[in-house]
């Protein structure tokens, strides 16, 4: 055996060993054994389509966040100006991020401008219009820079809140990513079983408000749209004895007396009828506010509103100290549990909408694996048998390197921490077919050279050297297509691109390098004149 051949065998064994180190941890039995502690922590991750789970794309409503911020600024301006003796009327947010209001007394214009300049550096005065009756209408606009800052901040906060909620919901390996350019959030929850519950807790804004009930308002009139100023009409949910629910109209004061931002903890408990309810704990500031509020409004009703829906409106019996409150209402144990999670994790800074959802039940995943592996085994077996029949001994060489090829692809997937998806399995099966191509190119070339009268030794040399460049050219184009697939694809498509690329790289190594070794070993022991089984 020449030194060159020995070196090539060494390289092959080394690559195989590395492959083994990366593949072995994917086998659960090995990972749990003492060997598993020495090996690297790599394994082939199964995609959602194989193990079940959920993929969500959430869109964050940035416009709503900006609108809320402007509307808050309007209320702040009204309060600050009032402290300085300037009164402004009807601050309203108009569509294009403008804040409009009316100043009844034109002579306090300078003072108002001063207040705006001092406290509202994120706004600039767009126009001041003097109306017919001498009042001045102001139009403020939020600066573009602040709007962008606000948008980024909102996205970051939304991601944080969502991560909090998922952590509390209990998912083992969640993957949460923000896409800053279009204000979207990608959430992957592999192996998740309670998909409905997950959507329930992720998409809820969880904006909690306490509002006083306007007992003097006329509900019949309110339903026709005639409301006292500062009031709003809402619907309250009731659960009936038979489990169905009904809604009753209720008139509330529009301004919330307290919001969910003061909540430090939330949990679930059961009342004496075994009905679940949600308990809330306020922080010290919230507790003081709540105590003062309940003291001021004894014998009045206070409504608990979550995301615009009234859960209950109990009568305040007495001043409540200690910073605890509860939400009773019509929920199941699961609903109460999820509600507690979202209240604990905090409100989303802006509503989110589910733009895309892909969820696969665990049973379908198992079925897909079985079918994919079945197809791979049968397809592979047919190819292997065919190669032996068609090329004889050389076919066995081809089959050997083909198996090594698949093994290396699996090792590559584990090593890169790539995700194996159903299209990925298809990619492996496809490379099976295409990996044969490199061998076929070489063998057909060798046959051709044998027909031209070359000795087996020379024909093998010629076959390999001539076919190598062709194989390179042909495979580079496929790799280009795979790279583009990876760049533009999402989820399963990326998995497919990765397996395709790994498959091609492995097939070049096995078909050009390793199979040559086997041929050389074989030829070394044969008399020069013997034929070649190809």
């Amino acid at each position, binding site marked *: 055996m020449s030194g060159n051949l020995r070196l090539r065998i060494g390289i092959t064994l080394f690559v195989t060993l590395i492959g083994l180190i990366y593949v072995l941890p994917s086998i659960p039995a090995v990972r749990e054994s003492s060997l598993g502690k020495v090996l690297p922590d790599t394994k082939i991750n199964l995609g959602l*389509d194989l193990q079940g789970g959920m993929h969500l794309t959430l*869109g964050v409503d940035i416009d709503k966040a900006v609108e809320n911020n402007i509307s808050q600024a309007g209320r702040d301006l009204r309060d600050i100006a009032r402290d300085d003796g300037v009164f402004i009327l009807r601050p309203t947010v108009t569509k294009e991020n403008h804040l409009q209001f009316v100043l009844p007394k034109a002579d306090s214009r300078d003072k108002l401008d001063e207040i705006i300049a001092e406290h509202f550096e994120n706004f600039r005065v767009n126009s001041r219009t003097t109306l017919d009756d001498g009042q001045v209408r102001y139009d403020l606009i939020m600066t573009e820079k602040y709007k962008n800052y606000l948008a980024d901040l909102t996205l970051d906060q939304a991601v944080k809140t969502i991560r909090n909620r998922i952590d509390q919901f209990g998912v083992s390996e969640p993957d949460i990513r923000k896409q800053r350019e279009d204000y979207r959030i990608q959430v992957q929850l592999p192996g998740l079983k309670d*998909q*409905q519950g997950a*959507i*329930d807790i992720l*998409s809820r804004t969880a904006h909690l408000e306490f509002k006083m009930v306007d007992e003097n308002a006329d509900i019949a009139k309110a339903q026709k749209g005639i409301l006292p100023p500062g009031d709003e009409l809402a619907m309250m949910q009731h659960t009936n004895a038979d489990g169905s629910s009904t809604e009753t109209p209720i008139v509330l004061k529009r301004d919330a007396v307290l919001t969910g931002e003061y909540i430090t903890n939330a949990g679930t408990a059961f009342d004496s009828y075994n009905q679940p309810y949600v308990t809330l704990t306020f922080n010290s500031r919230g507790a003081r506010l709540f105590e003062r509020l309940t003291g001021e409004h004894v014998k009045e009703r206070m409504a608990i509103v979550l995301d615009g829906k009234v859960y209950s409106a109990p009568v305040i019996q007495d001043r409540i100290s200690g910073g605890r409150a509860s939400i009773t209402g019509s929920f199941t144990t699961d609903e109460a549990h999820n509600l507690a999670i979202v209240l604990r994790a905090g409100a989303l800074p802006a509503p989110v*909408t*589910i*733009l*895309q*959802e*892909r*969820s*696969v*039940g665990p*049973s*379908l995943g198992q079925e*897909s694996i079985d*079918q994919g592996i079945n*197809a791979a085994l049968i*397809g*592979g077996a047919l*190819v292997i048998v065919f190669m032996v*029949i*068609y*090329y*004889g001994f*050389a*076919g066995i060489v081809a089959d050997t390197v083909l198996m090594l090829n698949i093994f290396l692809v699996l090792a590559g997937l584990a090593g890169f921490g790539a995700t194996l998806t*159903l*299209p990925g399995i*298809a990619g492996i*099966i*496809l490379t099976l*077919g295409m990996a044969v*191509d490199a061998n*076929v*190119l070489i063998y057909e070339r060798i*046959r*051709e050279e044998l027909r031209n009268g070359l000795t087996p030794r020379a024909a093998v040399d010629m076959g390999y050297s001539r076919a190598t*460049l*062709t194989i390179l*050219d*042909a495979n580079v*184009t*496929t790799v*280009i*297509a*795979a790279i*583009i*697939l990876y*760049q*533009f*694809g999402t989820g*399963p*498509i990326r998995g497919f*691109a990765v397996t395709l690329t790994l498959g091609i790289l492995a097939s070049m190594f096995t078909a050009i390098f390793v199979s040559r070794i086997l041929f050389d070993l074989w030829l070394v022991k044969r008399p020069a004149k013997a034929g070649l*089984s*190809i």
Partner: protein
Amino acid sequence: MGLNILKKVPTVNFIGYRKVAFLISGLLILAGVVSLAIKGGPAYGIDFAGGINVQLKFNNEVELDKLRDALESIGLEGLTVQRFGMQGDNEYLMRIAQSDIETDSLRQGIDSALAKAMPELGHEIQRVEMVGPKVGADLRQKALEAMFYAVLLIAIYISGRFEQRWWAAGIMAAALAGGMYVLGLVGIATGYLTIIALIVALALCWYLKLNYALGAVVALVHDVIITVGIFSILNKEFDLTIVAALLTIIGYSLNDTIIVFDRIRENLRNRISKDFGETINVSINQTLSRTLLTSGTTLVVVVALFVLGGGVIHDFALALLIGVGVGTYSSIFVASPILLAFQPPEEPLPQGAAPAKA
């Protein structure tokens, strides 16, 4: 010696059949285009059009009509129900065109509607996919861009490798990238932009005499159009996995074309014949057994995928099946005749090499 399909190098006059081949290709493309025109473009799956797919599994067979009636009671817009997978799987796919429904209320709706209408059957929701209209439009655009860049990069690679004219390939890339950018600024829809860019790419290949690239790109555009056309005729939907299949077809078709082109180049260097058509013919014949073998083994595994791979990748396997077949055909009957029509520049004789016999 193992088996031999072709005992010796065949001498089929492939180039002589090119008119028949052009007719066949023309008819296939025409049929596809007509089908696309009648149906108003490709039938987009929910990935591109937006909508909801729900896959349901029952313990026993359900009549489609009964299932449809039960599901219609939820009041969904554009509901279709069809069987999914194999006969014995008892799996059904419901497709809802509307995408502004919340999926958790949809799940509840389905659960209660089915529990009411067919309580004895025991159903399971296996898979829910919802794509909002905005995401759908984004995905559609990305898919088109992917196809375009794949074709462009491949054209550059072929021009560089086969004709050693990287500069010409570079000019083409720069012109196209610049053109795309400007047209994009003007606000032309990505769909038209891609088509325009492709036509410009072909024109540039022709103008810069990048004939190998021209042949290869025409062949792969041919393959993609025919595959898309057959999908339209069979009323199959386009989704992201089909785009993946199309890109794989592009890779495969090129793989095949390049192996023939490589041999043509080698034979040109060896001056096996004064007649270019003859050189091409010999080259195709020399590589024919390899072409048949590789396509054969690839088809065997793709057929295994198609038959046994399960419902989720059924259409993906179908696209590959069509593509591998058409891709093999096009490297012989489309790419090579185009190369003949435009003739590559003479290959320089390598130093010290004697012209080989045919």
